[in-house]
């Protein structure tokens, strides 16, 4: 990957972002604007997931914990402490970062499947906590103040996710940090010999993964006006983020964007027009994922790269291979 093609990808990203900014001028239908808002949210969640999964090599099956924590932190500060939304949102991001630190220190020592199991268990515990605690409203969930302005939420979501994308792009593709993470992913022992402290790098990556996820949660909480432990702390969130990242291309930034848009778009179209065949949706999705894991180890994004740079088939980019290998 030469710097030139990297620059080209940044330009494409800026163009896509600009198009997203102009989208509400074209799309007047509130339904589709909501769909676009949620698609952008999934882009954010997939990006956050990929920082730790693709770049660092750790499959986090407890990703939903950060989303839910962001949701509840923002909602609680708004409803109980009467903070203004943006302040509560920022605080939600901070709470997400702190939880990543607390969860990461013990779990990031584990490797492969053990990390996946541990994070899944922690997320389950967080969900259980939200179900049992009084201040969260327990299983009944809680309401946030109603602010029915689709444009507002579209732009806030776009702002959060756009900022996330460009910050991650700088940190992971331009600054040394991304390469250092990849070194840890490829071989932790070797990385140590080169002066890298894997524990520090992994915790930083985990925090970097948690912040955008918690921020998306915060926006989501205000947007949908009602949150409960099932919708915000359920396993499905991690599963979907994983699927999007694998489908798009792990260990890249464009991969999760493409994966999230395609998978979420497919889901929406299916539910909107073919809801009678609801059962088929999961079957098709499952088949698609299985096929993409087998035939497209680099995700959809891998097809275009392989063609352009003429890369041979026997050298798959490692993230998917490394992650699945470690899991075995």
């Amino acid at each position, binding site marked *: 990957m030469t710097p030139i093609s990297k620059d080209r990808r940044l330009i494409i990203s800026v163009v896509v972002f600009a198009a997203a900014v102009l989208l509400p001028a074209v799309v007047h239908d509130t339904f589709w604007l909501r769909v676009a808002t949620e698609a952008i949210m999934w882009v954010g969640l997939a990006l956050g997931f990929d920082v730790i999964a693709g770049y660092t090599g750790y499959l986090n099956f407890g990703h939903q914990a950060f989303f839910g924590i962001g949701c509840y932190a923002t909602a609680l500060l708004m409803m109980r402490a009467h903070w203004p939304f943006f302040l509560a949102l920022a605080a939600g991001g901070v709470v997400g970062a702190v939880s990543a630190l607390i969860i990461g220190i013990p779990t990031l020592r584990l490797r492969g499947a053990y990390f996946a199991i541990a994070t899944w268990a922690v997320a389950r515990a967080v969900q259980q906590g939200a179900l049992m605690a009084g201040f969260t409203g327990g299983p009944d969930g809680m309401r946030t103040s109603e602010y029915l302005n689709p444009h507002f939420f579209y732009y806030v979501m776009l702002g959060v996710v756009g900022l996330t994308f460009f910050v991650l792009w700088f940190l992971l593709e331009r600054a*040394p940090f991304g390469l250092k993470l990849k070194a840890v992913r490829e071989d932790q022992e070797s990385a140590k*010999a*080169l002066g890298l402290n894997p524990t520090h790098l992994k915790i930083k990556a985990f925090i970097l993964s948690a912040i955008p996820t918690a921020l998306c949660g915060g926006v989501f909480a205000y947007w949908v006006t009602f949150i409960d432990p099932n919708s915000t702390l359920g396993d499905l969130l991690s599963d979907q983020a994983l699927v999007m990242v694998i489908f798009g291309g792990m260990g890249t930034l464009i991969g999760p964007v493409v994966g999230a848009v395609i998978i979420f778009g497919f889901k929406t179209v299916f539910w909107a027009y073919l809801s009678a065949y609801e059962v088929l949706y999961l079957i098709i999705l499952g088949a698609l994922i299985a096929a993409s894991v087998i035939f497209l180890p680099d995700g959809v994004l891998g097809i275009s790269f392989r063609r352009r740079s003429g890369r041979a088939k026997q050298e798959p980019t490692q993230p998917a291979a490394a992650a699945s290998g470690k899991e075995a």
Partner: protein
Amino acid sequence: MAEPILKVEHVSKVFGGLTAVNDVSFEMNAGEILGLIGPNGAGKTTLFNVISGYYRPTRGKVWFQGRNISHKPPYYLAGQGIGRTFQVVKPFAGLSVLENITIASFLKHPRRAAAEAHAWKVLEFTGLADRAQIPAASLTLAGRKRLEIGKALALEPSFLLLDEVVAGLNPTETDRTIELIRKLRDNGITILIVEHIMRVIMGISDRLVVLNFGQMIAQGGPAEVAGNPAVIQAYLGEEHE
């Protein structure tokens, strides 16, 4: 040369009931090449791992440039100027050769552009420049061993631990690697080398340390060690001659 650059002081490493390294002491002066030899399982790699911070010594101390480094982690030691290679090579397989070396260069060149520029110099020096853009996974064994040395070099170390960097190479590649090691020494790097191939280690080392069953049984110049009865016995057995 007033002070030795490395001082290994009564170092032992015990794994459960197995004493892999038993009370080994030796010193190294700046600028010399010390060969560490011994039969399989003698504790060479274990001793390497103790010196480079991967294992903590059960007993004893390791001093580097006058500082006790016995309980320091590898990434700290890399910052102090200790570079190492691994017997089983550890390339970052999914990354390009250039990226591999760039990562190592970050230690002394924190900015990406500077690190990359430095990496190119290391690639030229180790003869890998023509393969800079290919993934490390598709290098030949000789190439991977070279990359291993290149990564250690990119740290700009003052002290280098080379663990079997010649083993498995053909004669031409072997000669090129020996030449490379000599060039490093001429650049002022102190080198501790483990190697099985006697032709190589005898030719290249200023001094040798011989381990057998975790114990140091001899040290001295190559000729002196080669004539030492204890060494002959360790390698060839009791009934020699």
